[in-house]
């Protein structure tokens, strides 16, 4: 039985949190995330969830309270955007290194400065190496589905890492689409009870969180985190498959669209993957063998799987919605090309697009395919798509 609703990306996120019914939700407003937490606050006000919200005075305190609550033994979720995530930064690392399975919705927005409230991926890409799992959503349906899966992935005993689920600010957060939601008890059963590894509130077994960890042990603890990120790959696939059985929508590391016989492939994250699919549909009608890979899981990075998926193509373009400021290209490009090293000599072309909410259209993506086909490759330095000279 389907239960279809018309929801914005933010409402879909709030609805997922409502059904998960976490123990604690610290929250602080920031555009374009605000609507997500205020929608959820209404659920709290109406008594339909058991959650205790902590309406903190900053995002730094939001993540700090999340760390405290999660260490205490509570299931904790929150949401933020851009500068809010930047303000959390210090504690983002403490959450992952303390192995606390917090789930954070990041509504992607350009980082200041200059200040800008619209979408790009500079915020979440900035903490790509912070030890968090990162799952990028394309549309409100995926916002909903990803948040529910994130809880299971984060809390898996072989993982115990925090998870960021992202969706594009305004483009998805404020756009109404059809979202097929599960029943409350289906979600409750799917996420299950959280059984924390070292609950601080177990006063009969006192533990110390956050000690001074110097040369003798810090390295070993980092290795544990790195291994957990590797182990997360298996868990992400298992959870994605199990969720598929429940909902009819299975999830993997990435989504392949018309790639089986594709000569040219575009790799993109988030809502742009939808735009790229429209371009592919139009080009396929004209007999062009083109396809799209929507990268869903960026951390852990599915390197061998991605290499396999693109190895049949003649050329690949990577669309980055953040600037790497490394005089080369954006972060997704760097990862993809690194993954291909000594595995394939398929050329990879770098694009940076859509910064600060600059529009991207199917025509622009068709242009990227045309570049690939005609050998106009940007292998040394990214081309800035949609930029005025």
């Amino acid at each position, binding site marked *: 039985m389907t239960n279809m609703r018309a929801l914005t990306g933010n409402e879909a996120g709030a609805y997922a949190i409502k059904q998960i019914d976490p123990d604690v939700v610290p929250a602080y407003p920031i555009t374009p995330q605000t609507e997500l937490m205020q929608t959820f606050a209404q659920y709290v006000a109406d008594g339909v969830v058991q959650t205790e919200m902590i309406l903190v005075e900053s995002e730094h305190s939001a993540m700090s309270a999340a760390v405290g609550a999660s260490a205490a033994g509570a299931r904790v979720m929150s949401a933020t955007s851009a500068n809010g995530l930047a303000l959390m930064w210090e504690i983002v690392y403490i959450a992952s*290194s*303390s*192995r*606390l399975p917090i789930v954070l919705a990041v509504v992607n927005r350009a980082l200041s400065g200059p200040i800008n409230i619209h979408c790009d991926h500079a915020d979440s890409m900035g903490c790509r190496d912070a030890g968090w799992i990162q799952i990028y959503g394309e549309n409100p349906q995926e916002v909903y589905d990803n948040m529910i899966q994130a809880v299971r992935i984060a809390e898996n005993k072989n993982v*115990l890492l925090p998870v960021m689920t992202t969706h594009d600010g305004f483009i998805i957060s404020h756009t109404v689409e059809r979202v097929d939601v599960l029943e409350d008890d289906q979600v409750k059963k799917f996420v299950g009870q959280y059984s924390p*590894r*070292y609950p601080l509130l177990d006063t009969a*077994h*006192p*533990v*110390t*969180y*956050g*000690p001074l*960890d110097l*040369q*003798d*042990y810090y390295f*070993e*603890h980092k*290795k*544990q985190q790195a*291994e*957990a990120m590797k182990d997360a790959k298996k868990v992400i696939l298992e959870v994605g498959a199990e969720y598929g059985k429940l909902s009819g929508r299975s999830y993997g590391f990435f989504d392949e669209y018309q790639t089986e016989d594709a000569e040219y492939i575009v790799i993109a994250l988030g809502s742009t993957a939808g735009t790229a699919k429209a371009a592919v549909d139009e080009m396929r009608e004209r007999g062009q063998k083109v396809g799209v890979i929507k990268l869903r899981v960026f951390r852990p990075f599915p390197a061998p799987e991605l290499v396999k998926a693109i190895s049949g193509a003649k050329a690949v373009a990577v669309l980055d919605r953040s600037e790497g400021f490394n005089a080369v290209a954006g972060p997704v490009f760097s990862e993809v090309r690194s993954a291909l090293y000594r595995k394939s000599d398929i050329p990879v072309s770098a694009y940076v697009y859509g910064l600060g909410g600059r529009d991207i259209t199917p025509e622009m993506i068709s242009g990227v395919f045309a570049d690939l086909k005609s050998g106009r490759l940007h292998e040394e330095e990214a081309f800035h798509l949609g930029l005025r000279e």
Partner: protein
Amino acid sequence: MSDQAPGWKDLPIGGVIDHAGNSFEYETGDWRAARPTLDKNKCIDCLQCWVFCPDGSILVEDEKMAGFDYQHCKGCGICAHTCPVDAIEMISEEKVGEVEIDEWGVKKSSPPEKGDQG
């Protein structure tokens, strides 16, 4: 230390320490340049030394001052300084052999009733 310490597979995750109070195994007593000693004849068991000791190294048995935890006492001398009846004397570690004290730092000249010296 690193060679004998557990490897990454054997450590609790997240840097959590699950042995509450295990710093007791870490002996700070060797920081000491001088050690407190107790004259039980003078001591009035007011326990000022106990409440002001930074290191929890004043031993109290049945509400009475019973000596010092030399495994942890760092020899700061606060106990001797705050003692209202001068019952605690700091003795240089180099001169410890010259004073007759029991293992808890109670001078042998003290009455035997409280100590272990039987």
